[in-house]
């Protein structure tokens, strides 16, 4: 009888051992299901992995109105003082002889002053600038704590709750696109208006541009306006020799632009 009992558990013992297994199974599966649930909550309908954002800028279309720079400051609460910009507009004046003259008073927000009439101007044009959201971003490489990172949808962001404010990233950016936020004391830069992207909206600078000089979209998708822009224009990226692989593409930019 005893042997029987040890070989074949009765119903009561079977149920008891099953009840012991329940918490174990739960413990095994809970993290997985919880993680799934959390991920679903985080992303909502938005799936970052299918996106890879970039921007095209048509130099021929930019009229230097500076509305993009102003809209950026409003949208992103960028300090109004003249030396903090997430995006700005530069004016290039190429004289017949000599060095190009470049300026960007208050980032172009208040327009540009009249040029000296004595200059024999060959050509002049405006160049909007912003973070290039490089694929091979030097700022991401140098950040000692990983506060600067590339999102799965290809946007370079700064985690302001993590940034230690060492400013190594500002030194490493070849484009002058970063600054230290004077109040938050952390690195700050263009986010492609990431808070708007997740809602299906365009970045503020693209939204307000009266001439559609800025084109925003997917780098890889056929139907994207950016793809069309890249298809029909000869584009360059800034400081390509540094191999940062920028995702802001310039059409009609002169070799003087850097």
């Amino acid at each position, binding site marked *: 009888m005893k042997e029987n009992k040890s070989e074949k558990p009765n119903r009561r013992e079977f149920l008891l051992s099953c009840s012991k297994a329940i918490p174990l199974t739960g413990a095994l599966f809970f993290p997985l299901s919880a993680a799934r649930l959390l991920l679903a909550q985080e992303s909502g309908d938005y799936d970052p992995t299918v996106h890879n954002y970039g921007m095209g800028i048509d130099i021929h279309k930019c009229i230097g109105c500076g509305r993009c720079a102003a809209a950026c400051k409003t949208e992103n609460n960028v300090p*109004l*003082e*003249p*030396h*903090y*910009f997430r995006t*700005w507009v*530069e004016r290039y004046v190429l004289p017949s002889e000599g*060095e*190009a*003259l*470049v*300026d*960007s008073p*208050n*980032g172009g927000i*208040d327009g540009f002053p009249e040029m000296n009439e004595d200059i024999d101007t060959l050509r002049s044009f405006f160049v909007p*600038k912003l973070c290039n959201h490089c694929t091979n971003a*030097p700022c991401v*490489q*140098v*950040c*000692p*704590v*990983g506060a600067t990172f590339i999102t799965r949808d290809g946007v370079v962001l700064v985690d302001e709750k*993590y*940034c*230690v*404010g*060492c*400013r*190594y990233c*500002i*030194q*490493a*950016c*070849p*484009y*002058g*696109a*970063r*600054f*230290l936020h004077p109040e*938050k*004391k*952390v690195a700050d830069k263009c986010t492609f208006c990431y808070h708007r992207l997740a809602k299906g909206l365009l970045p503020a600078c693209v939204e307000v541009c009266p001439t559609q000089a800025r084109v925003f979209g997917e780098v890889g998708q056929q139907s994207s306006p950016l793809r069309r822009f890249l298809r029909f224009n000869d584009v360059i990226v800034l400081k390509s020799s*540094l191999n940062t692989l920028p995702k802001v593409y310039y059409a009609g930019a002169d070799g003087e632009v*850097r």
Partner: protein
Amino acid sequence: MESMIASAVSALQDFTGYIYPNEYELHWELLIVVYPYLTGLVAGAFILASLERVFNVKELQPVYRLSLLSALAFLFVAPLPLLAHLGHPERSLEMFLTPHTKSAMAMFGFVYAWYLMVVLLLEIWFDYRKSMVIWSREKKGMMGFIYRILTLGATDISESSLRFDDKVGKAITIIGIPSAFLLHGYVGFIFGSIKANPWWSSVLMPIVFLFSAIVSGIALILALYMITTMFRFKEISMPCLNKLAELLIYAMIVDFSLELLDFIQRLYESEESINILSHMISSRLFISLIISQIILGSLVPMISLIWARFGRLPVEMRRIVYFIAALLVQVGIFSTRWNVVIGGQLFSKSLRGLTVYKIELFGFEGLLTTCFFLLLPFAILYVLTKLLPPWIIDEKDIKPAEAQVS
């Protein structure tokens, strides 16, 4: 808004050419000049100490312990300017807890910790263990208690255990030399690896940093040895001074040649940045680079050291020349750090304009804080020399060393 623009316009008058709007403020200021300067002194002093230990340069015995203690005092202070400069110093530990392994700066924390814990503290402990055990027995009260704690309970000073100390000390020094090279070479790499900045981006940067560190370390110990001997009313060891001067000359020749090589290479390659860099050197950096670093900080001390060491000079005169040369070298090396750190931010990355740097007197990154960080290592060194007198051995050992040389 108008007043803001007016103030910006008035500030603009000092700038030339075009600067990206975010570049008007310098991001690494005086404190970041101090940081490589202090780290350089650490590496230099340690390398000097290891010459005595590993390569048996007997003349340097009187400064062996002084070099170690100086290295430690300066190493304690070296990270402080970095910490003070951070926007969020309270988050600084994240560099150790969650480091970004691809970041040169994050990895520096580990190089620093390795150097402090494994190399310097251990070497000093093994070197002083016998003395500490003796002091813990001799001294009464608080000091005796402190020495007892410092011995960490290892009170065996038998012949065999002392031999073991010596062996381990030597092994640590052998590990210490590449570590010291790594420590300061790494500081050079932090700057040299920034490809965005043509003034910094150079493969020679770590090597130049290293040799300038050796130069500054030797000069520091030379000056410190002279000052401390004077205040202790002791006889100075001339063979030791002569050896220090000789080493200083050799290190300076290598350092100067490397910097010259870097300069010639840039000039000859004449890349896109050459115009703005030449403009910067001839205007913004003229005093700190041409006058302070090259003429006053390199050529004058180099020539006077050669003259004093190998010329026929009375001993008194020789000492004075050594001392002044050592001080000038410090001025020169500080200027070198200034020219790297500040110089690298005075030109725009658009390569079209120059900005200006005005030193603040007060404030966290001001002149006073800087002076504090420059003086603090000497205060720490004073305490260290009181706790662990580095001159115990010299009275006994100078004579044999002198005898050996003559």
